[in-house]
């Protein structure tokens, strides 16, 4: 991990050839964007020219072409916008609530590791509950509004956070603990100044995974009982065989997922700039 900075052997900072390094970084950054977006454009082009239709023997009512999806998005922009906010609030609210609950459980367990470990294992078993079983129950408990979908998402996300954060809180370098003990630091000081800080990378990893899980939870939750949202619109339009609008929902949901993931990533970079994965090369 140290060779990224300066060689261990030298006791001084090696001067960087700044101009050269900057140029190389710019080039690699550019190619990091160019290649995937070039591939994306090619993919859309083949789709638009019905390449996939020919290969898989599909008709346009089965797989609408990108231009007709774009037209459909433009025609339904108001409803798609309001449904995105609706589903987005289920995703974000549920994910934050579930992750927070998981984090609290992990923190509590880390203070009593012996009994806590069992509690975390129990919580991990929540992941075994299938969403299709959970959704009707939650709708039954919390009605067909935002709350039931948030509950589904919370249940789906809390175990991941609890397991990951607990692992982070417990895997502390023992010498660091000895160091804190040598200052006669209390349990809470060790938690605040050492355990929690070094668990943060684990917390963010769980949060990123949870963001993706939450989208599935919210949309599938809406399939069951809902009168609004992207998931509701998607299942409704498929029943009506209005494929361009159904595909619009899929595209918007995917965009929503990318945006939310990116937001978590930006926050991560701001909160733990010191972490090895965040360091600028």
């Amino acid at each position, binding site marked *: 991990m140290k060779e990224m*900075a*300066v060689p*261990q052997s030298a006791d001084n*900072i090696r001067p960087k050839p700044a101009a050269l390094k900057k140029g190389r970084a710019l080039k690699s950054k550019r190619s990091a964007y160019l290649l995937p977006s070039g591939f994306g454009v090619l993919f859309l082009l083949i789709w638009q020219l019905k390449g996939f239709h020919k290969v898989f023997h599909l008709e346009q009512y089965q797989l609408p072409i990108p231009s007709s999806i774009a037209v459909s998005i433009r025609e339904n922009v108001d409803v798609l916008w309001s449904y995105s906010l609706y589903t987005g609030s289920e995703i974000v609210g549920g994910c934050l609530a579930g992750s927070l609950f998981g984090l609290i459980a992990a923190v509590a367990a880390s203070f009593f590791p012996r009994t806590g470990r069992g509690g975390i294992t129990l919580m991990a078993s929540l992941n075994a509950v299938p969403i299709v079983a959970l959704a009707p129950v939650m709708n039954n408990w919390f009605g067909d509004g935002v709350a039931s979908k948030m509950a589904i998402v919370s249940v789906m996300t809390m175990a991941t956070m609890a397991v990951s954060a607990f692992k982070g809180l417990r895997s502390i*370098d023992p010498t660091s603990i*000895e160091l804190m003990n*040598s200052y006669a630091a209390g349990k809470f000081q060790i938690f605040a100044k*050492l355990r929690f800080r070094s668990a943060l990378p684990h917390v963010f990893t769980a949060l990123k995974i949870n963001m993706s899980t939450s989208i599935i939870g919210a949309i599938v939750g809406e399939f069951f009982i809902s009168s609004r949202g992207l998931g509701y619109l998607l299942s409704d339009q498929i029943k009506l065989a209005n494929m361009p609008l159904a595909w619009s929902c899929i595209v918007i949901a995917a965009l929503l997922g990318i945006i939310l993931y990116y937001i978590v990533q930006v926050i991560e970079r701001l909160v733990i700039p010191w972490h090895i994965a965040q360091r600028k090369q």
Partner: protein
Amino acid sequence: MHLSQAAKKAEIIVDQVSMRFGKKGHEVTALQNVSFKIYRNEFVSLLGPSGCGKSTLLRLMADLLEPTEGQIMIQDEHPREVRLRRKFGIVFQNPTLFEWRTVKQNIELPLEVLGQKKSQYSALTEQLIEMVGLSSFKHYYPWQLSGGMQQRVAIARALSLDPPILLMDEPFSALDEFTKEKLQLELLEIKRKTNKTIVFVTHSIPEAVYLSDRIIVLSAHPGRVHSIVDNVREEGDPSHIRESERFHEMMKTVRNCFYEESGFLDGQTI
């Protein structure tokens, strides 16, 4: 240095200390009946091969471990008291810096734990950073520093509470030879300025001979005090010690302790 031992004040008394690890029946004896004294303002090295329990001994002094038998007194108190009153600073082989803290913030960690206000200690931190020569790196993160610089931060951090005792567990053994010599010189300079009692664990004979007033030579399996070598370091310019006749004589003396032990040379000198 040439005071009689009775006139000197014993800072650390290790009395008949034994340490065993593991479950009953499968115990490993790390230390057996270890006794010695360390006097105020002394620089004492605990020297020995791997497995002689020298790091364990240091952790016993720091109250990070408790002895199976015997006792340790530091300034006439149990190590627990001494630790709770933060009367020693400790430096490990691994710098053990917190990755999320800058150089300055790492040095301020013990002061923060103590609950002091930032305004109270910011001048002190600046002074410590200056002392270890890292003024232009105070806002750097540990990963941006070389190994030697990281260990300098760890030393400054150990000094931040101005403890009378400094415990060092092979602090330079992971560094290359050039950096090591530089830091050894700097440590002597710090010792001259602060006059702390320093207990220094090492497996390097030249390092112990270069730095110490006295060397406690330990032998392994189980760890015991083999011998104690007095009056090791001569007064004078530390940058020329290594070239002196006396340094080489001392090296021979200490080295012979080990060869005697292993029966390798049957007591003849090299």
